[in-house]
């Protein structure tokens, strides 16, 4: 699995995608840092994540859309699937590599936290909980993006499916309150951002992530017999 993680992680930075992702994410974070925190003279670090989570909806598919679609289109999936590696380790390897890229960008936001610490006294606990929630939310997004990528060989379609799903999960609670308990965005908004770790939302995010990793494994496994 380590070999796959290494190669996948490296290939994010061989093509410009990795840089573009981290670049856009940090750029948007800077803007939100200025608009949400700086202009209000606030020291609440969590404000930034409230806005940044909407950006995730549009940029996580940037990273995930190529995960399986590209391999399928170029035929390199043949190399992977005929190698003595199990489908599980291939999928997990790819997931971890993508998750690493996302997590690196999140860890980089600690720079803003350091700035806040220098000029004021932000609440450390609340900020870290928000950071954790944000990380979990992005892992769930990566997991679904990977699934979308595994069901089509067209990268654009994979990206559109992911964005559509993320937006649904974002806006559906606005239409009917019965969706509140199933919305990823709300799971983050309702608890983590206020500095509270709620078991319900933690379980929702984690189980969603694991579920779609398993779905991806099933899709790849199944294609062997259908193909």
């Amino acid at each position, binding site marked *: 699995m380590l*070999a*796959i993680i*290494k*190669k996948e992680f490296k*290939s994010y930075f*061989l*093509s410009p995608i990795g840089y573009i992702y981290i670049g856009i994410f940090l750029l948007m974070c800077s803007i939100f840092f200025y608009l949400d925190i700086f202009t209000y003279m606030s020291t609440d670090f969590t404000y930034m994540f409230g806005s940044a989570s909407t950006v995730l909806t549009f940029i996580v598919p940037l990273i995930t859309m190529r995960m399986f679609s590209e391999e399928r289109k*170029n*035929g*390199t*999936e*043949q*190399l*992977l*699937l*005929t*190698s*003595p*590696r*199990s489908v599980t380790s291939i999928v997990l390897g790819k997931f971890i590599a993508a998750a690493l890229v996302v997590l690196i960008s999140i860890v980089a936001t600690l720079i803003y936290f350091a700035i806040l610490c220098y000029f004021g006294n932000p609440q450390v606990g609340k900020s870290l909980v928000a950071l954790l929630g944000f990380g979990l939310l992005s892992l769930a997004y990566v997991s679904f993006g990977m699934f979308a990528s595994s069901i089509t060989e067209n990268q654009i379609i994979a990206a559109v499916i992911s964005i559509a799903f993320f937006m649904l999960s974002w806006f559906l609670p606005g239409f009917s309150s019965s969706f509140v308990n199933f919305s990823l965005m709300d799971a983050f908004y309702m608890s983590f951002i206020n500095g509270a770790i709620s078991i319900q939302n933690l379980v929702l995010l984690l189980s969603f992530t694991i579920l779609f990793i398993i779905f991806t494994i099933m899709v790849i496994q199944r294609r*062997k*017999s259908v*193909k």
Partner: protein
Amino acid sequence: MIQVKNVTKKYGNFLAVNDISFEVKDNEIVGFLGPNGAGKSTTMNMITGYIEPTSGRILVNGKEISKEPNKVKKQIGYMPENIPLYQDLTVREFINYMADLKFVKRKEKKEQVEKVLEQTGLIDVQKRTIKKLSRGYKQRVSLAGALIGNPEVLILDEPTVGLDPKQITEIRALIKKLGKKHTVILSSHILSEVSQICEKVIIINKGNILAVDTPEHLEEEFKEENSIHITVEDKENKIENVCEKIKELKSIKLLKENPDNTKQYALIANSNVDLRKEVFDIFPKNNISILELKKTEVTLEDAFLKLINEKELKEKKEKEEKEKSKREEELNNMTKEERKQAIKQDKKDKKEEFNKKWEENRKKEKEFKEEMKQQKKKEKINKKTSKKENKKGGKK
């Protein structure tokens, strides 16, 4: 080594591979032959575990791929058809990655990579990005990827497609060399290649195995007749008389008269008789000089075409017969009046078809006639003008 037992693969309703069984022994080079879409790649993909057969079993070294996939895959090096490669990696990085994927131990990795690079002639380009390589080099990289990890079985899907002649001979020599230590299965639709490299040929068409044999056997089997082609200079036209003297000769056929007064004949003999010596003896004695003498040989190509055509003809006949019997059944099931009408309809259809053809033919004839007319007109005009010119010239 490799046993394929009653393997069938269906894509929806399409039967890609139909109940095939064969066996490949240790250190054997086997060639898969067949036209496009015959099921070569599908079979190879199934042996490598990329796709699963609809039914049947595949054993590699006694282990079933569907039950112990990772153990079996470790023994197989696969070079897929469309040379899929990670375009962003350099050659060395790619081969390193393939080595990692195949669990090559860290201590042996460097040595093995070095060896494979040398075998496939990639040392000069090892630091270049794969994207920027030419097709021939990409093919070698793909082959190198299959070779790394020293697998016991090599499966190469059309390894020489798209290479230049020099590269082709190089790769062929390499495969032959590899065949001494590995079991090799390769597919191709180039027959000369297969007959050069392989010890055994599996001819496959439309998902069915038509023949499994050595190339030599196949050639022998499809030899139609024992004949020699001969080009002679025969000023006195005695050849037929002379030929009557040769006992084993069955018949003689004039193939072609060359402009330099030489003639080419085909001499057909009873089977298993070599005529060449006798012909060489007798002909010069009778003032017939031999310019060329050649034994006709059946190539693998002929055998291949014959096998495939035979099968297709059979299928066609069967189909036609089926349609006929179907139609008859339909007629039998109808009432009298319906039958009458149906027969009338059939006749009508046939008539219409005939009329259509006839009209087409007439049209063609008309067109042809008009063309001829126009040509004649042109010729007349040409003649007139040339005559006029002649007259003018004469006056001057």
